[in-house]
């Protein structure tokens, strides 16, 4: 119950600042442009994509770009979650309330995830609109949507944790971006290596796991990767807030 109260408040508060609206509008606008480009390219030169269907080109391409756009925007959404409470001291309200820290962190997390799911619903309307004119591969579409949802949840969890480390939202945003970009591209570090190093850098790469989903493949290893990211970040966040009581801040 407490979690729902905190999540609801966080969700509603997001819409009180222009930031959420701007993010919704920008993401929608950029993705609409990309969607239009992908679609018109496919329509003009179908020969280029011999043997590949609309879903594989347009839908998969669309969700791949959406993943990258979210990598860029999530830090701005999550930066305030905890850092601002630390800066203004309003965290004291939460810490002096009869709320367990786990409930507090989960509430904040779920409030932001709810917002992300709205964003997911809005952008997914674009590929869904193809239903009007053609037959989509619903299996691949569902995998891509699930992949984006998992990516959003993981980025939010990381952003939440990083936000609890700093007193300034801008620093939290920068650090979140640095961390998520590092994970996103970690496979590049392993391009010239083989064996264990390559395996680790490939496994860590968010892009690799995400692309499996957009390609229409549901692999439990990819699913576990995102789940691990979320769990680790949330646990670290709980641990960090708990430690605030013993440290000076």
């Amino acid at each position, binding site marked *: 119950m*407490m979690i729902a*109260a*905190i999540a609801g*408040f966080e969700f*509603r*508060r997001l819409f*009180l*600042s222009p930031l959420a609206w701007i993010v919704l509008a920008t993401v929608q606008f950029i993705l609409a442009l990309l969607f239009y480009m992908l679609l018109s390219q496919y329509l003009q030169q179908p020969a280029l994509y011999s043997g590949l269907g609309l879903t594989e080109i347009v839908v998969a391409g669309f969700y791949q770009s959406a993943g990258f756009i979210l990598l860029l925007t999530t830090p701005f959404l999550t930066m305030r979650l905890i850092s601002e409470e630390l800066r*203004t*001291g*309003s*965290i*004291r*309200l*939460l*810490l*002096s*309330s*009869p*709320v*367990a820290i786990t409930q507090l962190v989960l509430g904040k997390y779920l409030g932001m995830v709810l917002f992300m799911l709205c964003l997911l619903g809005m952008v997914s309307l674009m590929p869904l609109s193809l239903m009007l004119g053609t037959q989509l591969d619903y299996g691949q579409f569902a995998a891509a949507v699930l992949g984006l949802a998992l990516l959003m949840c993981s980025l939010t969890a990381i952003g939440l944790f990083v936000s609890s480390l700093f007193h300034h939202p801008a620093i939290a945003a920068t650090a979140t971006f640095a961390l998520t970009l590092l994970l996103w591209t970690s496979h590049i570090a392993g391009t010239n290596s083989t064996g264990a190093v390559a395996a680790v850098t490939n496994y860590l790469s968010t892009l690799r796991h995400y692309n499996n989903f957009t390609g229409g493949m549901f692999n439990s290893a990819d699913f576990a990767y995102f789940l691990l990211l979320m769990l680790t970040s949330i646990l670290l966040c709980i641990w960090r807030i708990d430690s605030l*009581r*013993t440290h*000076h801040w």
Partner: protein
Amino acid sequence: MSNKILIEVRNLSRFYGARCAIEDISFSVNRGEISGFLGPNGAGKSTLMQIICGVLAATSGSVSIAGHDILEDPVPAKRQLGYLPEQPPLYPDCTVDEYLYYCARLRGIKRSQVSGSVDISKQKCGLDGFGRRLIGNLSKGYQQRVGIAQALIHTPAVIVLDEPSSGLDPNQIIEIRELIRDMGRDHSIILSTHIMAEAQNICDRVLIMHQGRVVLDKELGSLQGTGDQQYIIVAFNEPPASLDQLYSLDGVTNIHALGNNRFRISCRNDPSLASVIAGTAAANRWGLCELVAESESLEQTYLKLTRATAGDDNGA
């Protein structure tokens, strides 16, 4: 009012690294008592308040609220607790109603009762008609009221107020003090302040803190007038050549000349003594022109206790 102990603090210490913010503090607060923590900046008041409310953990020692340990058993303890930190924990982008609804839910009030609690706390804090105003647009005084409304919304047994009147103008200070005095009827209140008049005005009991320790813990009544000693300051137009006659009065222990024909008479605390002195002065035609009874005030006590090593201001 039952004498049940609501707050019990035992041997509390807190270190920030090697620096000691509070050291071995123990006290208890009964139901319906307003206790004031008085002390210079950096005496450790805010740290103490935060530890009592479970925001900071103590390095050693324990705090229990209504019988629940704040660290072992935090949820039931915090249910009995309202806290106004030094900076009110507000969300400036919310309206007063939105904020108080959220606080009510956070404090564990049932959804069906939230609306009623919000209305009652707004009414108590003089916020009727402010429900739809944005907190960020309110004046400092009203923001402080919202902060207090938040602390009492769940009618906790204990309310902790950290510098409730800082940054307010004199009218607002008077209003907030009245509010606190009102609240003191139903709740136990701990407040911190560095304003003497405030403690004198609203508290039943004063604890003076200095450099992380409680150096004085007294019922306010005993500081004002009911002590063993009082001072009477007199001024004469034609002072007697010898003060023997004054010394011979029953209860007078010492007389100290202050210059300009003024004298400070140390004497037993006896309300009739002032009129005896006036009578003696009139009978001897000393031209009595001033007579002020002066008990050892809170201010003097405070200065005596905290001045010795003042200037060591590390920030709370």
